[in-house]
């Protein structure tokens, strides 16, 4: 079984996120970045499947794929340390400012170049854009069934089966391979790289591809080709400081008074 896991390099959520004033894009260079935490669950899911399949990790490969700036190599490194076999990094000046549609186009072409995987795994959403649409877009472009938001995942022969916890029901979804699966943070507990994993990662193959390597025209992606445009951004004014009381026996009464005054009761 060949598994491709799509991973995104994102600005650290704890840092002060901001925009580039010149073109209204996310500032990805001025802040520390890291592998999107939610993609660690997808890497872990891929590793678990490879380990459990006949032949184990010797015959089942996990390739991680990222589209992002030079520093996105750090995300690949982390995934290789966790145990992935190989990495592919699509990096090109022209990608800057790409929207979700363009990102899915690049991912789709890269997946095709990697070869036809049996399974494509993604996170549930990135921790920066957090649109949660790239998996569906990628499935559409590749003509694959999408089996999304898995809280539990098994592969049985040529069939993938997941459990998804929805609002009105918990459902079982089934599809034939090849398929695209996105996983939630409920699915597993991602492993930490071991010392052995960190050493081994240094020898693992990482390929860096440009748009030209994928047969994509620079004009088909990036800010100028985006289907959406950020017209303006404003920093939200800090919320006016609220009224804070310390409970001295009547905190609940004061709370109820606030609710009545503001017509919530």
């Amino acid at each position, binding site marked *: 079984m060949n598994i491709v896991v799509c991973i995104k390099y994102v600005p650290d959520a704890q840092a002060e996120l*901001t925009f580039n004033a010149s073109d209204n894009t996310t500032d990805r260079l001025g802040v520390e970045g890291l592998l999107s935490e939610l993609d660690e669950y997808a890497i872990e899911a891929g590793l678990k499947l490879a380990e459990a399949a006949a032949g184990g990790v010797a015959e089942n490969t996990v390739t991680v794929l990222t589209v992002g700036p030079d520093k996105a190599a750090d995300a690949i490194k982390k995934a290789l340390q966790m145990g992935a076999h190989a990495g592919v990094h699509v990096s090109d000046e022209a990608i800057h400012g790409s929207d979700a549609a363009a990102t899915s186009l690049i991912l789709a072409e890269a997946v095709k170049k990697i070869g036809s995987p049996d399974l494509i795994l993604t996170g549930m959403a990135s921790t920066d854009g957090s649109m*949660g649409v790239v998996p569906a877009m990628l499935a559409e472009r590749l003509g694959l069934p999408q089996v999304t938001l898995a809280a539990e995942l098994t592969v049985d022969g040529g069939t993938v089966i997941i459990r998804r916890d929805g609002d009105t029901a918990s*459902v079982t979804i089934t*599809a034939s391979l090849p398929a695209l699966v996105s996983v939630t943070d409920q699915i597993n507990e991602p492993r930490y790289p071991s010392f052995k994993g960190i050493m081994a990662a240094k020898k693992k193959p990482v390929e860096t591809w440009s748009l030209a390597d994928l047969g994509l025209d620079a004009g088909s992606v990036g800010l100028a080709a985006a289907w959406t445009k950020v017209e303006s951004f404003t920093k939200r004014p800090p*919320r006016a400081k609220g009224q*804070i009381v310390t409970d001295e026996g009547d905190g*609940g009464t004061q709370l109820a008074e*606030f609710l*009545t005054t503001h017509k919530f009761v």
Partner: protein
Amino acid sequence: MAEVLVLVDHVDGMVRKTTLEMLTIARRLGEPSAVFIGAGLDAAKEVLAQYGAEKLYGFESADYDDYVVAPKAEVLAQLVTSASPAAVLMTSSPEGKEIAGRLSIKTESGLITDAVDVQAGEGGAVRTTQSVFAGGYTVQATVTKGTPIITVKPNSVAPEAVSGAAVEQAVEVSISEGAKGARITDRKPRAATGRPELTEAAIVVSGGRGTAGDFSKIEEFADSLGAAVGASRAAVDAGWYPHTSQIGQTGKEVSPQLYVAAGISGAIQHRAGMQTSKTIIAINKDEEAPIFELVDFGVVGDLFKVLPQATEAVNKAKG
């Protein structure tokens, strides 16, 4: 005036409030057309007309409910071609976003997710407002290619009742075999709580690690206000409350009139799910808890003392 397609968000014909909000938004952009996919069309008709649907495209078949997303995207793509709408609106739920994602690629149209406001801009361009980076920034965006596809966050506008003709349109659509690749093969319904749905509720009361596993005081307070109950990830991970009630980056995003956080510290991932709430209240033992940076009203104290007293006072005030 051009049509604006609104994908009806419903459960077996029970139309969700977000649909009425989207019909209200659609009127700003053109003539609202409701697109109903799935089972239960008859039950939905009346309310769709009451909230201004001029046209009604019904695709009634339980089949749609057995497949994940792709068939619905195919239906909408065919309508986009035949009706040339000014925009397509759907709910910013996981399903809504995924349908939108597939539709965007099929129709080569720009997609904007999580809009908290949508207005007709200059020259008819559709202008959206998003709240991004855990509510730290407000962004105005437009779609520059194809038919604007926009997913709208629940509770973004107040629904306005305006009667519409809701004329049923007979349209034939075809669903490809490929769209039926992912099938729902089993369904375990969740027991109803009797409380409002989290994303639609006007008031949400949430509990965190500070409850130490006892949500009874949270629930009693919520019930006094007719509120939905939410939870932080710490409470969910501990198994105290179901994951479907989690508020935050990896749970639900809510923007109610009032959000009450009890025994929740206010981590950035939690804020991402509640920061756009209109009024915020916190009860926390620790006066340094970051949640207090957001509040309109805060009580530094023990939730097990503060909430029961507040519940009693609220119940008394209601008479």
